[in-house]
């Protein structure tokens, strides 16, 4: 959870200049970051100790064939040219072919991504619904038990290894108590009943009107989503608390109180209203962190999303798939960053 302090470290936005120029600057930095991402994945692809030619034709092919394939893969050209070719392919959505599934990596990613989206979105929803009120209450009663509770929740959330939490969760809630369903997205018996529309089990089963499938999906989703939701809650509650404390110290809060506004109105309307924009940034960052956090969680829960896809590809030395997944998650990260920056520019007049 290293994204935690990123809010504080976001480069301060200057106040001069027109909004369009600033948005243009944002677009420029996004393009640059994307270039950086592809350069890194390209380099990683080059340093792997596997000869890509041998990987295709085997080590007994005659030298002429080897040379021809090498030429076709452009491996005999300068690195800069190779990168140019690579970038062109990535921009056209060509992430190579997966060695294992023998399908384009992009197709594989499109197949597994909805599962991750379902998990991360549910977790973030839980984190927001519970975390924001907890943070607000903690700030409003600083030093009281709820404040300490939020502190403990935060400390535990920042310190616990998520894969271990998943295992213990399975042991307690699935094996011992039987409250939730086990690993995977659905029981085998329910698999394939609802036709795939969105790729998100809960939505698909609702569209098809299959309530049994829906309920089974909820039972499977419940545990992993709650665990990730807890991590999200820990972060959101702590950030909400400190953002709220900053507001409650300000003079307008005193002014509102002096005017006779009720405490609830001061807190929920005046103070909370003023932290909405940074709060959305916090939520976006926590969402990005969860997309990453799913890598370990999906492995524990055999959840067929992008995290499981990447780790399984790792063990099969399927580098195209690994790097494709890295680019996808990296792009989502960049998009979320862009979204929060634009939000600041558009919504918060002070940032203009």
């Amino acid at each position, binding site marked *: *959870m*290293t994204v935690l*302090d*990123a809010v*504080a*470290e976001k*480069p301060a936005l200057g106040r001069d200049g027109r909004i369009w120029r600033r948005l243009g600057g944002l677009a420029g*930095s996004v393009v*640059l*970051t994307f270039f*950086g*991402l592809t350069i*890194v*994945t390209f380099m*990683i*692809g080059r*340093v*792997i*100790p596997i000869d890509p030619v041998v990987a295709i034709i085997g080590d007994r092919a005659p030298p002429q064939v080897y040379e021809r394939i090498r030429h076709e893969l452009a491996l005999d050209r300068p690195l800069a040219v190779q990168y140019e070719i690579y970038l062109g392919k990535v921009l056209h959505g060509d992430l190579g072919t997966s060695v294992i599934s023998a399908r384009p990596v992009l197709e594989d990613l499109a197949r597994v991504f909805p599962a991750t989206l379902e998990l991360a979105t549910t977790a973030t929803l839980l984190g927001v619904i519970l975390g924001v009120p907890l943070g607000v209450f903690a700030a409003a009663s600083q030093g009281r038990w709820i404040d300490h509770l939020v502190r403990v929740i935060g*400390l*535990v959330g*920042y*310190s*616990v*290894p*998520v*894969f*271990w939490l998943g*295992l*213990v969760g*399975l*042991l307690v809630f699935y*094996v011992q108590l039987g409250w939730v369903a086990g690993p995977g997205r659905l029981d085998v018996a329910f698999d394939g009943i609802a036709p795939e529309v969105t790729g998100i089990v809960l939505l698909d089963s609702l569209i098809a009107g299959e309530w049994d499938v829906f309920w089974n999906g909820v039972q499977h989703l419940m545990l992993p989503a709650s665990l990730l939701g807890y991590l999200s809650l820990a972060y959101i509650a702590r950030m909400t608390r400190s953002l709220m404390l900053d507001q409650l110290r300000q003079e307008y809060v005193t002014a509102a109180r002096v005017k006779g506004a009720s405490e609830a109105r001061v807190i929920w309307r005046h103070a909370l209203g003023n932290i909405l924009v940074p709060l959305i940034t916090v939520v976006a960052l926590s969402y*990005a962190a969860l*997309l*990453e*956090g799913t*890598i*370990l969680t999906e*492995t*524990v829960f055999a959840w067929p999303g992008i995290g499981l896809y*990447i*780790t399984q590809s*790792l*063990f099969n030395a399927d*580098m195209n798939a*690994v*790097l494709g*997944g*890295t680019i996808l*998650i*990296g792009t989502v*990260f*960049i998009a979320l*960053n862009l979204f929060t920056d634009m939000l600041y520019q558009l919504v918060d007049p002070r940032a203009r």
Partner: protein
Amino acid sequence: MPDEGEMSLALPHPRPGWRDWLLAAVPRSRLQARLGASYATWLAFCGNTLALVGLAIVLLLVLTAAVSPLLGADAAFAQDLTRRLLPPSAAHWFGTDDLGRDIFARVVAGSRVTLFIIILVAVIVGPLGLVIGTVSGYAGGIVDSVLMRITDIFMAFPRLVLALALVAALKPGIENAILAIAVTTWPPYARIARAETITLRRSEFILAAQLQGASMFRILRRHIVPLCLSSVIVRLTLDMAGVILTAAGLGFLGLGAQPPIPEWGAMVASGRQFIIDQWWVATIPGIAIFLVSLGFNLLGDGLRDVLDPKRG
């Protein structure tokens, strides 16, 4: 809160002692002033119970690693297939794993692995961030723009995924895991060091050093880096929890330390298949990870409150 502590301690003592010497309002020498300042910081730190708990956990980790052979860590590699998967007992405090190895011995031996990882990461990341940040902040101009762009690019990356891809490309192993974690951890340090450098760059003592003809290297090394250190150290302490979790995560996925090295994350992974009937194999190393990273979080919070109050 720290103020109250100092107030009460400033009251006259019945017998003048080293404490009064340390807290003297008018120190007689530089040494006394410096020691006194450290002592006051320490007192403020002691006022924070949670931070002390954190310090105790971290010290326990260091101590365990230091004396691990005395605690029987040598048994960490001793397999005994007749005694596999035994529950915790007097002979095996934490039970045994699937190869009949004593889990207590492996957890103790694992403290060295954890310490090795965090020390190496800190030693790589701290100086790297300091160099990039101070040079960037002091030189300004195009150097600053280029270095900070690179930093921003690295900061926008998904760290775990990048570390994963890097380790996979380089070959799984503890050294490559450390390298991958370091590569993805340094950017915030560069940012912190740069921010501090920019506030110092135009101050008069730097100007004085410049007028004396000090080179950029000398100014950075003697005047700027020492002043950036406290923020970097606080951040390092806070980050250590994250580093431990990432390293354990890589170990859990089989990309970190390779068997038979008793790395805690890898131990959780190896106990995974026995979780239903032999819960202790996977659970106990996980508790060790949790405790150590909790310790660093508590210690880091406490240090931040004492050394860097403006950020708290």
